[in-house]
């Protein structure tokens, strides 16, 4: 089990913590900064990559992901510097996926060429909505037309392009969402992330909701109907859900995210980044300071930003369930069979129609996926 990560792959996550403006729904580790010393940040990120790579030399890297924040605010040179650092001690897989999360604005689209030259071969665009008024409500700086233009540029520059939408928004009806989704499917190439709006603690939306505002969010039943409809319509368009909120044509899944969900190894670099790394049979969870300033000074002063804790066998089992059951493909049956208690609980969930089990694999059914937190709650071990 120790070297299990090999089956799922090995990835690098790079966190860029800056944004142009903070969106009211967003609880990501993102900050608005007046000016950013790009060269200094690139140096720090690259030095973190080198540090871990020297500990794990020779590993084959299957994916790199620049997430944020808004990584499309990075200079292409910074992206290039980080990528170069990753090649010094690791081996890039032939089919390596290098994704960058981008906001669909014209200023950013102008940098796409540079990213491609630096080695980026996939972008994920935060389109969020295909309605101008809705984009304004979400506090986005772009409009629909601008997003579509950015999407066009991305398609011409990169092999693979995906985009994100947020639905189950205020006052959104089932039919309105259906129309918007169909438009999205017409635009989409081979990958789409469709997230139901979540009101996260610590966001402006959260505060507004607590103060009695933000009315008209869908109730549980409507949200469930929207989810079901989304799955049906996407399936018809040959864009099956391969994960709770992610849809792709077969083979076009995000390899990077699959590594998380299949519980491979990934190195997390940048403020607030998390990683999971297997070293000499021990599986480590790593975490970096979230505040950009704190992270930067730690790298520069100590040469290491991350803290590591060893995961217990129970932690590993629990995380594997939490991640794996999100996937349509589920997890390997052997995993359950190795845990008699889990096997028993899973059997009862199968009986309730919330899990399936066939061909040596087990996963959440469509009904189970909508109740995944409960299903997982039933399975967690102490």
């Amino acid at each position, binding site marked *: 089990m120790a070297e299990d990560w090999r089956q799922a792959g090995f990835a690098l996550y790079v966190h860029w913590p800056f944004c142009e403006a903070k969106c009211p729904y967003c609880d990501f580790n993102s900050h608005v900064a007046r000016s950013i010393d790009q060269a200094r940040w690139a140096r720090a990120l690259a030095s973190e990559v080198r540090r871990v790579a020297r500990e794990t030399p020779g590993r084959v890297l299957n994916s790199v992901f620049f997430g944020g924040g808004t990584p499309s605010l990075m200079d292409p040179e910074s992206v290039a510097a980080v990528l170069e650092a990753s090649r010094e001690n690791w081996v890039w897989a032939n089919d390596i996926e290098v994704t960058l999360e981008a906001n669909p604005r014209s200023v950013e689209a102008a940098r796409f060429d540079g990213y491609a030259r630096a080695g980026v071969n996939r972008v994920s665009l935060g389109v969020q909505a295909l309605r101008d008024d809705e984009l304004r409500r979400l506090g986005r700086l772009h409009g629909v037309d601008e997003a579509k233009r950015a999407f066009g540029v991305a398609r011409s520059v990169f092999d693979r392009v995906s985009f994100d939408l947020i639905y189950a928004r205020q006052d959104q009806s089932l039919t309105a969402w259906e129309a918007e989704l169909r438009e999205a499917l017409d635009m989409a190439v081979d990958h789409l992330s469709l997230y139901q709006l979540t009101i996260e603690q610590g966001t402006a939306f959260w505060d507004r909701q607590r103060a009695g505002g933000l009315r008209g969010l869908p109730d549980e039943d409507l949200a469930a109907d929207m989810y079901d409809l989304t799955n049906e319509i996407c399936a018809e368009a040959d864009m099956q859900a391969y994960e709770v909120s992610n849809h792709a044509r077969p083979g076009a899944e995000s390899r990077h995210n699959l590594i998380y969900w299949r519980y491979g190894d990934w190195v*997390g670099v940048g403020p607030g980044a*998390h990683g999971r790394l297997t070293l000499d049979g021990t599986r480590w969870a790593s975490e970096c300071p979230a505040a950009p300033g704190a992270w930067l000074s730690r790298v520069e002063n100590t040469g290491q930003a991350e803290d590591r804790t060893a995961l217990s066998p129970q932690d590993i089992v629990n995380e594997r369930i939490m991640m794996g059951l999100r996937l349509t493909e589920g997890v390997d049956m052997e995993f359950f069979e190795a845990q008699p208690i889990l096997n028993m609980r899973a059997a009862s969930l199968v009986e309730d129609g919330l899990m399936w089990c066939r061909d040596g694999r087990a996963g959440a059914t469509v009904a189970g996926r909508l*109740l995944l937190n409960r299903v997982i709650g039933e399975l967690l071990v102490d």
Partner: protein
Amino acid sequence: MSTPLSRIRNFSIVAHIDHGKSTLADRLIQLTGTVAERDMKEQMLDAMDIERERGITIKANTVRIEYPAKDGQTYILNLIDTPGHVDFAYEVSRSMRAVEGSLLVVDATQGVEAQTLANVYTAIDANHEIVPVLNKIDLPAAEPERVKEQIEDVIGIDASEACLISAKTGIGIPDVLEAIVKRLPPPHSGDPDAPLKAMLVDSWYDSYLGVVVLVRIMDGTLRKGDNIRMMRTGGKYGVDKLAVLKPAMTDVKELGPGEIGVFTGSIKQVRDTRVGDTITHDKRPADKALPGFKPSVPVVFCGLFPVDANEFEDLRDAIEKLALNDASFTYEMETSAALGFGFRCGFLGLLHLEVVRDRLEREYDIDLITTAPSVVYHLFLKDGTQLELHNPADMPDLSTVDHIEEPRIKATILVPDEYLGDVLKLCQDRRGIQLDLTYAGPRAMVVYDLPLNEVVFDFYDRLKSVTKGYASFDYQMEGYREDNLVKMQVLVNDEPVDALSMMVHRDRAEMRGRAMCEKLKDLIPRHMFKIPIQAAIGGKVIARETLSALRKDVTAKCYGGDATRKKKLLEKQKAGKKKMRQFGKVEIPQEAFISALKMDS
């Protein structure tokens, strides 16, 4: 040397809830300089957290103040601030036994209310001189002249010389002090050299001093170091500490006739003392005990169980400690198939229940499940035996029961006449029998004979809401009467939940059953499967609701960094489960057990 009787005045401050008793006590304490200005705070006698939080007095408090009167003499005044809520009426009546007069506070914006009347009757019973005090005259809505008339019409006491005050701003307080001295009588008699005869008025547990006993000396003198005996319980103790309450304990050497003070001895628990008992010297006892008081009787019972079954021992500890301080609630161990070990407790009323439960949860940090409150039924079995039923779960098979009697009360409600119809309807709905309907000025006074069990849960809340808070309510126990009562069971997911069983009148069973199922449907969170909720009488279902299955509970985003975050979320979810109790496959939140009984319409 003890103070001559002529320079002592003992009195209680009584009123309807919130009319300003405790605030008046503050002013009397302040104006006489009993407490330094910097130590004053609002309603300073309400010291318990729960009193301060709810802004009500729960426990009567005694304070000794010294007042230099206009006649040049300094008087010793012992005041007792009493609670206004009907659940604590017993505190008022026994406080009155220790004093000779009462200040009857009436809120000049509200006028005479139900407890105003009840308190007047108790004061008259205790042979008290009564000085009416009209409070809150600082408020624009105050109508002192009208309220004076009302006092004369409704209560029949002279209000022409009532003090007009604002306990808040301090207007009129000097007049109150003069009236206390001039119009309230001194203690009637008392011989400092006679054998000791002292009334045990109250006792409480102080974590530092142990049991503290409040006494009123009738005859003789009590000194520090004396060996005393309680005439009824026979307990003998040495007096370790003797003090008066100012309101902080201030040591004194002796207490003479007419005086009120506290002592401590080696008394282990409050239960070893009995209010109304007579304390005398062991060596030179009085020949006759004082008449004593009627003990308080709990009228509402419920089960208290720890949410976490492992906390039973902690609960036992907490209940025992709390009982040290509150002799008016009773408890005994109880076991329930579904809830495990807990206690069946008896209370003076629903507020008393809530107060005790709150204190257990807060001061001892134990999450509790409170089962359906119940009154005490008298069961008459076919074989001639008679049983007291404190817990519906213990109800024997109906075929063995000849008939059942339930406790009834006499309720007095004062209400502005525009709400009279709503009040009459409420009383009729609750199986009431009208006894009287008269008018006290613009307000109606309604007297009803009602079954206690219809009043216990939510009658007061309902009354407040149908009258927008303008009605007041008081009640007394009236004895038992036979009626057509049955046990209603509640089944959740086809399993009977004992803790929700209740006795109901047969004619009201369907209605209550329906209300209960609807309520539970709202109170129980959705599960992954649908849950039938039924009410049944002897196996026959009389009401049914279905709680539909939960449809959606999934986190939209979960990437590399979220593995850790999500784990925390799931742990929180698990902690939330701790506030729930498992019944078969269903988890029921603790608050459901009481909330389910409250009826909204």
